[in-house]
């Protein structure tokens, strides 16, 4: 633990930032969990709640940015303090995006519901969401502890989510080919899956930011990628099912 600042109000300002980030993290986590539950259980009321909560994250991000800018102007932070503040700005932006993705998933609940989606399809999404939420939860724990090793570990695990996303992509495409009536719900689910996969990416970005905040350097090497959905074509799927 670094020693306190000579000016104690400076410590308070930094504490404010980290407290607000933790709060944003909690809200974002809840929104994502609720949006997926609303989707799986076709709960329009819960979906509406998620949609209405997005403003909380928007406001929090704005407040964090304002506080960060005033702190930079007032304290002219150096070294770890400067990284701490820049990190707060970046993480707030990531979490705000996570909230947007949760909101977007929630918005699709009614469309999916009205076009009649088979229950089994939602299962795959649930599993994807569990992994993404786990990433998000762990990265927020790492923010609290600033463990460099754990930040690295999270960054290296994003490929699991990518792999499941790719298999879900193929599955949804197969359903669409089987019956054109599936196209509407499956397209919405595809977007939902993409939303959730993106949440994993944001968690990874946050892990990289925490790594930088703690060490002053960027984590080395490419982050692992296993999202091969960009090259999936229908022809492959029909060959596979033959």
């Amino acid at each position, binding site marked *: 633990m*670094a*020693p*306190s*600042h*000579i*000016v104690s109000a*400076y410590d308070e300002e930094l504490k404010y930032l980290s407290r607000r980030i933790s709060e944003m993290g909690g809200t974002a986590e809840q929104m994502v969990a609720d949006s997926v539950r609303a989707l799986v259980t076709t709960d329009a009321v819960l979906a509406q709640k998620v949609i209405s909560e997005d403003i909380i994250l928007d406001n929090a991000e704005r407040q964090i940015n304002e506080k960060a800018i005033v702190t930079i102007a007032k*304290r*002219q*932070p*150096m*070294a*770890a*303090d*400067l*990284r701490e503040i820049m990190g707060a700005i970046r993480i707030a932006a990531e979490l705000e995006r996570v909230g947007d993705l949760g909101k977007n998933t929630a918005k699709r609940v009614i469309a999916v519901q009205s076009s009649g989606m088979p229950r089994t399809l939602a299962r795959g999404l649930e599993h994807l969401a569990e992994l993404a939420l786990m990433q998000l939860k762990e990265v927020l724990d790492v923010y609290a502890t600033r463990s460099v090793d754990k930040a690295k570990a999270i960054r290296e695990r994003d490929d699991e989510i990518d792999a499941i996303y790719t298999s879900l992509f193929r599955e949804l495409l197969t359903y669409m080919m089987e019956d054109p009536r599936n196209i509407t719900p499956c397209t919405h689910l595809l977007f939902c899956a993409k939303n959730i996969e993106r949440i994993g990416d944001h968690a990874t970005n946050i892990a990289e930011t925490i790594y930088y905040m703690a*060490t*002053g*350097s960027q984590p080395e090497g490419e982050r692992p990628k296993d999202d091969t959905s960009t090259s999936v074509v229908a022809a492959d799927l029909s060959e596979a099912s033959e």
Partner: protein
Amino acid sequence: MNIMSEAAVEKALDGKMNDISYKMIGRDVSVYYGEKRALYDVNLDVRENTVTALIGPSGCGKSTFLRTLNRMNDTIDGCRVTGRITLDGDDIYDPAIDVVELRARVGMVFQKPNPFPKSIYENVAYGPRIHGLAKAKADMDAIVEQSLQKAGLWNEVKDRLQESGTGLSGGQQQRLCIARAVAVSPEVILMDEPCSALDPIATAKVEELIHELRANFTIVIVTHSMQQAARVSQRTAMFHLGNLVEENDTDKMFTNPDDQRTQDYIMGRFG
């Protein structure tokens, strides 16, 4: 002010940038004021055409070290310097060294602007005259003009060169002192908190000037303002309790220093 752009300075230094050459080298430099030891075996190399900032809390030895570089400590009773300091390879504490000539090569600008109670022209002409640098009046005029140009002061004073130097504003006085230091064509300029008595605008002008002077001179600056060190220097040395704690690229020093003491000091934390 007649100021070179960042690109012009980099261009002027092109070629010199790649291979680092050291203008002054300090080896195991210790300073004692009577019984009290103020510096402990400092090893610090000053790069040519580079601004080196010396930072650290009050009493850390940064000004003491600065003063060893042109033997200003000689004037303090009971002050003793051990170790070795070279300028272009020559030991400046060699008994054969002419201290007056050394101080012409290693000039100094102080915390408070201290112009002579003479005209602006005479303030600048004084050094070149005692060093016999100008043969005719025209030569001296040229030196005075060039020095004031380099100090970014020419346009502000060219019509009143015969007025007293003490009548200028604080910032102008400090730039006059820089012009005075520059007039004897030194190789190294030492600056001991040159902006601490100046307002932010005058400070900005002096900082811009330091940046430009780097093309022709090697500069060592002591400053209490971390932001100033970060802005004007390329290398930074951190002193603490008479020891050199860390010397590093300035960009690294202020974003991710290696030493915990540097970290605590620049962030304003309790060490």
